[in-house]
């Protein structure tokens, strides 16, 4: 029975737009977007522990591709091209950076997002002369939601598949000790590259799907580094190396942000900051690990 729960859940979510207000739908889109981002991020970073801050480099690129092509090509084709560009970008980035360890990788990915933003800005200003671009697509909020939901389902499904597959084991070994991984016969570069490209492709696609809601796109809007940070925080909060961890981090945090911006617009950043610090101290391995620990303690207490 439990095996079918995700499917039932997916159907419930797919039917949700018929039961909620427009704002409710907006919330669902936001929540599902972050579930997708956090899960896709964790696909690569969760096990390998390479903390990537390049999320927005891909997410923003996806949105930009749509902004550039939406008037010349059919929507479906635009999405495919966005995914391909994301994959290509990830391949190039991955080939050059995946040998960087630890904090250097973190900083590189942070710089990458900025570089992409600066280069696109320069190109638009000097070559095309149109920095702001418009996305006038007849994609309704419901359609965006369904597309994003499908992408989230694919991401989680892919994660589940990878977890059960040799690739998942390889990624976990790499996260623990790359030297051991190599000496056990795991091809490091290829393994990391595969996961990185898969993750980045989904991130790019997510940006492409979300973009029609923004109508107007310019680099300062789409390459907003907060998105990268939020993604990391959400995934880590839930537990980045577990299948449902990123989703479980994304949903409550997303609603917490919404609650704060509605009820405490002036002190929102202060509460948010304190919340983060609290998470780091109270739930260091994510919510799921915290629950596990609690259960273990409870069991021991009962025994």
């Amino acid at each position, binding site marked *: 029975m439990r095996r079918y729960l995700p499917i039932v859940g997916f159907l419930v979510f797919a039917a949700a737009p018929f039961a909620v207000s427009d704002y409710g739908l907006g919330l669902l889109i936001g929540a599902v977007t972050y579930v997708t981002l956090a899960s896709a991020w964790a696909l690569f970073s969760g096990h390998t522990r390479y903390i990537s801050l390049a999320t927005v480099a891909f997410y923003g690129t996806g949105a930009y591709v749509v902004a550039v092509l939406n008037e010349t090509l059919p929507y479906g084709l635009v999405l495919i091209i966005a995914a391909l560009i994301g994959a290509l970008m990830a391949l190039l980035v991955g080939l050059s950076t995946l040998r960087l360890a630890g904090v*250097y990788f*973190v900083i590189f990915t*942070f710089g990458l997002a900025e*570089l992409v933003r600066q280069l696109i800005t320069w190109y638009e200003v000097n070559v095309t002369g149109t920095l702001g671009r418009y996305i006038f697509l007849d994609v309704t909020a419901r359609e965006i939601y369904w597309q994003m939901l499908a992408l989230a389902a694919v991401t989680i499904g892919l994660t589940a598949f990878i977890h059960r597959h040799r690739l998942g084991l390889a990624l976990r070994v790499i996260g623990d000790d790359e030297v051991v991984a190599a000496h056990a016969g795991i091809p490091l570069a290829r393994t990391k590259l595969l996961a990185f490209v898969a993750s980045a492709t989904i991130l790019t696609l997510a940006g492409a799907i979300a973009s029609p809601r923004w109508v107007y796109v310019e680099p300062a809007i789409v390459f907003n580094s907060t998105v990268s940070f939020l993604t990391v925080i959400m995934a880590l909060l839930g537990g980045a190396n577990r299948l449902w961890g990123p989703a479980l981090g994304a949903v409550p945090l997303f609603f917490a942000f919404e609650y704060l911006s509605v009820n405490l617009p002036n002190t929102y950043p*202060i509460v948010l*900051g304190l919340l983060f610090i609290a998470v780091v101290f109270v739930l260091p391995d994510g919510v799921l690990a915290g629950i596990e620990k609690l259960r273990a303690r409870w069991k021991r207490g009962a025994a």
Partner: protein
Amino acid sequence: MLTTTLILGLVLGGTYALLALGLTLQYGISRIMNLAYGEMTLAAAFVLVALFQGLGLPPLIGLLVIAPAGYAVGWMLYAVMMRPLVARAGTSGRLEVDSILATFGLLFLIQGLLLLVFGANFTSISYLTHGVNILGVPVALNRLIAFGICLVAGGALVIALTRTRWGLALRAVAQTPNSAPLVGIDVNRVARQGFALGTALAAVGGASIATYQTFSATDGVIFTMKALVIVIMGGVGNVAGALIAGLALGLIETFVATAIDPGLTLAATFTIFLAVLLWRPQGLFGRG
């Protein structure tokens, strides 16, 4: 023209270097990847303006108040917030993740407090804005003073690190944190000093920026990023490297702005930064 580029670039680079000194200490010695670094500099900038406008305290005197205050704040922050994370992480690599998360929270916290206390307005003061002629190139006096502060602070640090016992301990912790205890170094104490000193430098950097630049409460991340770029280019924990990299970056940006296209200055910065990361992740002046 070349003289102009050179002098303007050096002055700009000096302010960059000053900004990066604190971060390289915090990150190199205390192993704290401090994403709230820019907010710390901003806080000092706001305090300087408040002292100047509220109490009429001249900025150069204000600096003398802000620097030790920064040290005290850094000391407390490390003891209360960072130390438990360091202790929990042990020798594993998780301190990186934890410090990113915790300081990200700190970033929001400080930004929120700044917005609440000082508002969202652009803030600026006019202080010693008149130009001084250097080899035919007019440079604002406040920029020259900031450059001087950078040279003094950076020079003093380099000497302290290379010529004193205390500096030796700091460098030992920066290079091999795990074996430093073997030679009798109290790593916790050194790390706390490093973090506090880094915060003091962040405060000095922020306060000197406040004398010549307009800023607002949401600008912190710009400072963090510039500082990070320089720290990586100079080599983590390498003070002399940060000084040279800061100056170099100033020269490069000025050169790109005058000779190529001002629109590419930031792109050039990040290109060089990424190239350094790939080519020499230990920094341009690191060992190895």
